[in-house]
């Protein structure tokens, strides 16, 4: 009687809704598994896929986006035992998703409103997604640190390209599978594993990226990203890695605002 041989998972990048190898064919190893070492070309492909998904995702109703984030929370909860991180970290990540799922249809009331202008106009200001957000996730915690940056970006109606933990990329790649069964449309989330410095600078330099959220906690990389962002006036938020649910939600408004544009509309009132 031979013992059953396990079927091992081939870890892949998640770009445009597809699980793909790096176009470069390169790979690295973590926790006994090979995983793709994404290239700058993969970054460009991911941004292009994200851009394509941006308008339809933003056009969905806030209610629908909230439902999808809630569904993602459900899917993650059901995989809690297989994410390769402590159960508490998965639970915190689920709760963070839940928190931001509830933000999708409240953001307008909190950040926007009617402007009582001193002239006969209906003037109002509403938050809108800034567009394609590049996320640089911290090394640790690999799952919560990613979800803490991803959830507010999605809740505000953005699409995202995220560079995963360099030390522990597998939980982030596993998250792709949870999101993939959560009605997250193709290209709305793109997850890349590999060498952070190489990928993050390629992402930061991309001219079709609107904002960078940098939670890597690396001051040198942060300064590089600031400099790259200036080229096309990207919005940049630096933050410490979120290690608890509270870290990821206490400053929710700040996180949401960093990936939001406020649009003011003026409509005349009169005959």
């Amino acid at each position, binding site marked *: 009687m031979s013992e059953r041989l396990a079927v091992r998972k081939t870890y892949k990048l998640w770009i445009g809704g597809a699980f793909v190898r790096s176009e470069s064919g390169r790979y690295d190893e973590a926790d006994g598994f090979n995983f793709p070492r994404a290239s700058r070309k993969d970054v460009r492909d991911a941004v292009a896929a994200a851009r394509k998904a941006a308008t339809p995702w933003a056009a969905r109703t806030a209610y629908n986006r909230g439902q999808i984030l809630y569904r993602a929370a459900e899917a993650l909860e059901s995989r809690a035992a297989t994410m390769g991180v402590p159960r508490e970290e998965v639970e915190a990540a689920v709760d963070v998703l839940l928190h931001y799922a509830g933000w999708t249809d409240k953001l307008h009331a909190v950040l926007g409103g009617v402007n009582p*202008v*001193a002239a006969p106009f209906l003037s109002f200001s509403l938050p809108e997604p800034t567009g394609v957000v590049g996320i640089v996730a911290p090394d640790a915690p690999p799952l919560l640190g990613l979800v803490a940056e991803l959830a507010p970006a999605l809740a505000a109606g953005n699409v995202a390209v995220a560079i995963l933990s360099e030390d522990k990329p597998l939980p982030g790649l596993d998250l792709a599978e949870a999101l993939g069964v959560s009605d997250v449309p193709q290209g709305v989330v793109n997850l890349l594993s590999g060498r952070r410095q190489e990928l993050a600078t390629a992402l930061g330099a991309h001219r079709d990226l609107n904002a960078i959220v940098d939670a890597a906690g690396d001051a*040198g990389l942060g300064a590089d990203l*600031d400099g790259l962002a200036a080229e*096309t006036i990207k919005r940049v938020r630096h933050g410490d890695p979120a290690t608890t649910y509270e870290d990821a939600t206490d400053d929710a408004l700040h996180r949401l605002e960093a990936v939001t544009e406020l649009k*003011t509309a*003026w409509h005349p009132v009169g005959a």
Partner: protein
Amino acid sequence: MTTETRTSIVWDYAPAPESADHIRLKDRYGLFIDGDFKDPADGGYVPTINPATEEPIAEVAYGGPVDVTAAVQSARAAHPRWAALKDLERAKYLFRIARLIQERARELAVVETIDGGKPLRESRDVDVPLAAAHFFYYAGWADKLRYGTGASEVRPLGVVGQIVPWNFPLLMAAWKLAPALACGNVAILKPAETTPLTALLLAEICQEAELPPGVVTILPGDESTGASLVRAPGIDKIAFTGSTAVGRDIQAALAGTNTHLTLELGGKSANIVFEDAALDQAVEGIVNGIFFNQGHVCCAGSRLLIQESVRDEVIAKLWQRMGRLRVGDPLDKNTDVGAINSAEQLSRIEALVAAGEDEGATRRSVECELPARGYWFAPTLFTDVSPAHRIAVEEIFGPVVSVLTFRTQAEAIEKANNSRYGLAAGIWTDKGSKAFQVASALKAGVVWQNTYNHFDPTAAFGGYKESGFGREGGPAGLRPYLQVVR
């Protein structure tokens, strides 16, 4: 019944110049540091010119690096007491400033017009009243910051450096100073090189309001003064309004410093006229959109997108209306289009207009008598413009409108969004549902429907994409000047 054709009558305007007799400007203005006007330590004095006459008006100090350091020191020293003041007491100073602006409104309007070249009608009816309104509005926020931010505890950032442009000198100073001070910050404001005077009058107003020394510093100067301010140690935040090129330099200079930053930069805003618009009304809006303040407006409607079916009619009406614009003496109360702000800006406009002609667009400039001295540019319309032409892509910042056309709503949206900028847009249609649909699809921070160039302290203003980040006006205008404690 017969219809009589009315002979067209040309109504001549008699000159209606605003008197400048009541203006008492000093011959020379120092740097306003620590509550007093001071001679520059390492800068110099440079005359500020009336762009309508090329005559010097007064000499103004330029701050050098040593002056910037002194300014930051004085501001840092002033900050703890200012921040510790009871919120309502801080508000009272701002209310005082608002009132003093109203009291000195006529003087401020005339000086703004002399120093910058904008028509008195605009400085009197737009710039100065809105500046007062901004101080009044943010004064009221000073003791309500928690409500404006959704936070239970907020803290000022500290010392903020603010750099403003020459197109709305006093109004931009108000946009910058009012929210910064209301939030408990102290501010160092650098007015534009060509238009320092109203900011210096505002310094006098701060003295008159008994604002504690160091709370407001006015540091006139040129680009090097601004560059020193941006890089000065002890600055917690920079707020800049101006060109995208300079904004980019500032963002790069602050890389890795954790200095807070907001940028309000350039634009190439689309003004979209649909075939179902009230066309006469639209033409008025087009004129206001591009010729207001000689087109020296970051949100100017400089890309006119007209639906093909009404293209000829709109252009005919627009051209006719442009012929009625009165170009000339900014102090004349009937003037619509005043002087170009500076020789430098005039040559920039001329260069881009020449590029437009070279690239094959058709230029029409209004034939009007322009004064012999001063900097002037006749209102200009370009047709046969392709989306790739420089005049369709680059900010001209002058009285020049580029006309492009579209067939469908989707094409209008695509063309409007085809820009690295995203500051503003206009939509002209009588169909409400269409207006809302288009407004939501445009990547622009401000969208005006059936109107253009309206501003209000309660309404957020600021851009998408390379038009900058952060908002001024409304509760959103508080956030760039605060940190949330919890």
